[in-house]
């Protein structure tokens, strides 16, 4: 499976998500990173996989960070859709910890599937056992490494779980090529909806 191949990869510091995504992407492919932040993932993909990458970012300060790195970036709001891109323009669209911050996740996913052959989505798993403990036992909104914010200042608009997302894909007629739950340093094979802090999915249109 594409995602499981994390051996013999470059060390990318704390960002295990970057490593997983790096291993999913073919050399010389065309990549659109939706909500690319400071452009670090695109920089890594360009360096190691020679991708032709473009980022879209809504936060003006992040644009400056991207430009400093030489990452090609466009200042736009992905909630508005991607009307400027023709169908199947990219090999991959990446939504790396972006989807939960969008206003219209369904629209964003469908747009990503329209302009990209495959879509990579990662998100914090809201059914992670630490999160369950925080809500179920402590009675508090969880604050974890993947969900570091207080409830009143979080950019996250949607909280969902691996199970939710699988159901969503089924409902929306999206086929899941592969998915994995993971933590900061390893892939979780055993009951990921409980033991995985985060998840990454590889999707295509049915």
């Amino acid at each position, binding site marked *: 499976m594409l995602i499981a191949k994390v051996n013999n990869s470059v060390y990318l510091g704390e960002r295990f998500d970057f490593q997983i995504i790096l291993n999913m992407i073919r050399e010389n492919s065309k990549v659109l990173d939706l909500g690319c932040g400071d452009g670090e993932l695109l920089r890594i993909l360009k360096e190691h996989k020679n991708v*032709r990458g473009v980022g879209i970012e809504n936060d*003006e300060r992040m644009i*400056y960070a991207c*430009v400093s790195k*030489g990452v*090609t970036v*466009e200042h736009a709001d992905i909630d508005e859709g991607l009307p*400027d891109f*023709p169908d199947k323009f990219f090999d991959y669209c990446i939504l790396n910890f972006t989807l939960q911050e969008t206003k219209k996740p369904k629209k964003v996913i469908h747009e990503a599937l329209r302009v990209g052959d495959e879509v990579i989505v990662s998100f914090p798993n809201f059914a992670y056992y630490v999160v369950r403990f925080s809500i179920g036992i402590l009675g508090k909104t969880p604050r974890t490494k993947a969900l570091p914010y207080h409830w009143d200042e979080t950019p996250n608009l949607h909280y969902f779980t691996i199970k939710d997302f699988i159901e969503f894909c089924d409902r929306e007629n999206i086929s899941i090529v592969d998915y994995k739950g993971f933590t900061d340093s390893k892939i979780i094979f055993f009951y990921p909806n409980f033991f995985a802090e985060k998840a990454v999915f590889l999707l295509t249109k049915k």
Partner: protein
Amino acid sequence: MVIELVKEDVFGESSPLGLRETKFFTFDSLHLESGEVLSPVTIAYETYGELNNQKDNAILICHALTGDAHAAGISKETGKLGWWEIMIGPGKPFDTNKYFVICSNVIGGCKGSTGPGSINPNTGKHYGMSFPVVTIRDMVNAQAKLIDHLGIERLFCVAGGSMGGMQVLQWVYSYPERVKTAIPIATTLRHTAQQIAFNEVGRRAIMNDPDWMGGDYYGITFPANGLAVARMIGHITYMSDLSMKEKFGRKLRNKEKFGYDFEAEFEVEQYLKYRGETFVHRFDANSYLYITKAIDYFDLGDNKDLIKKFYNLKTKFLVISYSHDWLYPPYQSREIVKVLKYAWVDVTYCEISSTYGHDAFLIKNQEQEHLVTHFLNNAYSKGE
């Protein structure tokens, strides 16, 4: 980096580039888009920094409607600072320690390049309205002759805002292999009805001034009133609702109460009056007509054709717009980005939030400096 001494001068301005003198280059003739031939043609230009041995560090700066070749340093002639002093100089985004920066006055202008105020060699008189109508493409073709003359095969960068941005786009269109990177700022692929409308009001103000005399006013009179009104309209479109509110509000000038008359009593009225009055001392009314016409004619082409034309173009773009620019609104910059993206051209786009309007690109701002500095650094270090 060597920090040059800031050179003070008699004019009270200071610039690390010191005093600059405008140079001139004259060539035989230029075939214009209209079919006419302009001959001879003189281009006024200034340069800053040194051209390296490989001749791969040249940057061409294109000026806007009322700009000139004097982009940086202190003018020997007028004692004024260059119009883009904030961006050009040692250690600045267009770093003269590193790059060879060129700025030339457009043809049709009145700052040393051939224009309606020049003498027609065939008649010995000022061209006036017999000067042929020029376009942005003509301006760029003339600049290309200057670049040839300077011995430069390929420009590292062409940059400019507003009409300067149109020239940037035209450069890439006309000479794609001669432009490595392009920075069009606050500009558009084509002039819209609203933009043409504002220009037309300005032109009518000039042409309806009795002192315009069909354009043959040289040495006799000057349509100062008309040109001042044109400039006032222009200035309104360069500012934003917010910047005017912040700068003037409803403040009255030198008085507490309304005069109940028609003197210019609001701050904003005084400001526009001042802008109009000072402008007429430095700009030729006929040039205003010709250059606004060139801008109005500007249309790089249909999006579909442009995508074909630009497909896989190697030039790298940095497109910048300003959030409160309503003369060349961000959507027009996004249109440029869209065309380039479809053509698989490497393009970075940023809409800088600023309370200033269209003229924001002429006002010192860290965001623009940062974007240009890093964009050029990355492109320059990569070589090719």
